[in-house]
């Protein structure tokens, strides 16, 4: 079984006798979505794996705080997002907002699980140059193809603000790519 509905999972999670079974079903259902969400934030597979595991541990230990007012998926995304941001803050990568390619470029080139061509590597570095919150919005919309309404619930931000943030991110990325393409040609 690849996925299960919130209702099936919650039914198992509510009973302490079936809690672990429910938790296993929760992981099975959401692990891929959450992994890719985290991976786009932290880039590296090993880091993404660590953050994903920490996310699930937080979910396991903090399930009693989930009041079932929102979708399970929304709650999990929030935890994964917070874990990713905390991880990035701790790691303090050497990427600067002004577009200087340093740590991210090296990190992606060294990542054995990155198969992109030069254009994709450049795009990835352009995304890395964004401020963290803007990067989060860009990733969720561009790679995750998430509707603005859903993003609004997860990030607790208005749809209008998210649209504006995405638009700014796109423009910054275009500028970054044009500048660095020119650098490469020179």
């Amino acid at each position: 079984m690849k996925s299960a509905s919130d209702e099936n999972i919650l039914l198992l999670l509510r009973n302490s006798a079936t809690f672990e079974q429910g938790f296993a079903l929760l992981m099975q259902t959401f692990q891929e979505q959450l992994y890719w969400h985290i991976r786009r934030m932290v880039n590296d597979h090993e880091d993404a794996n660590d953050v994903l595991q920490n996310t699930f541990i937080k979910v396991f230990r903090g399930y009693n705080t989930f009041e079932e007012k929102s979708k399970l998926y929304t709650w999990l995304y929030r935890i994964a997002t917070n874990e990713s941001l905390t991880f990035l803050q701790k790691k303090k990568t050497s990427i600067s907002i002004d577009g200087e390619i340093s740590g991210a470029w090296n990190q992606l080139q060294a990542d054995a699980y990155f198969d992109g061509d030069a254009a994709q590597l450049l795009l990835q570095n352009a995304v890395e140059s964004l401020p963290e919150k803007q990067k989060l919005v860009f990733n969720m919309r561009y790679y995750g193809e998430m509707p603005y309404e859903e993003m609004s619930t997860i990030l607790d931000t208005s749809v209008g603000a998210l649209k504006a943030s995405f638009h700014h991110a796109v423009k910054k990325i275009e500028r970054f790519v044009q500048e660095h393409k020119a650098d490469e040609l020179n």
Partner: protein
Amino acid sequence: MNNELKKELEAISPYLSRMKEKPEHCRVPEGFFEGVQESVFAKLKNDYPNASATTEKVVVPHGNNLLKRLLSELEWIFASPLALAASSFAAVLLMYWWQFHTTIADNCTQLACVPDTEIQQYLEQHLDEFEIETLWSATATENGSEAYIQDPEKTQDSAPELKAAGENEVQQLLEEMIDKGEISEDDLKDII
């Protein structure tokens, strides 16, 4: 790529729209997702040996509505047909037990359940603790218990030993008691 995003990207950045058509450039090790659960459970056991204890909780769905809380607590019953059947049977048994005991309780209030002989015995032993007037008025409302504490006239009628005793003998007995000082003439008048 979904149509909504495609239109949005084409409008603001044809470059990103083209890039989106390229295949996914990140991958994961083979079988990675099959091992995630195992790794998480192993980490939980190592780092938090008592983790399962912290997860026992009462979920309060949609506010503090008591009915919803109760239904939420009982939802596991509906999860399996066996649990549903067992709980239905238990509910029927409970209702039967409750009805049985309620019927007995209704029919068996206070002295009505105590055997007559027991009441008689108790009253004989504790007669001094009651005022005779109270007992008479109480027994007047109890049809079945009238035989034991009755109006003196009724008692006279129904007590064979007193009926058998001759008036002369009674008079003689009273005179002897007055002579011995066991009873005064005033007391005797009051009794009569």
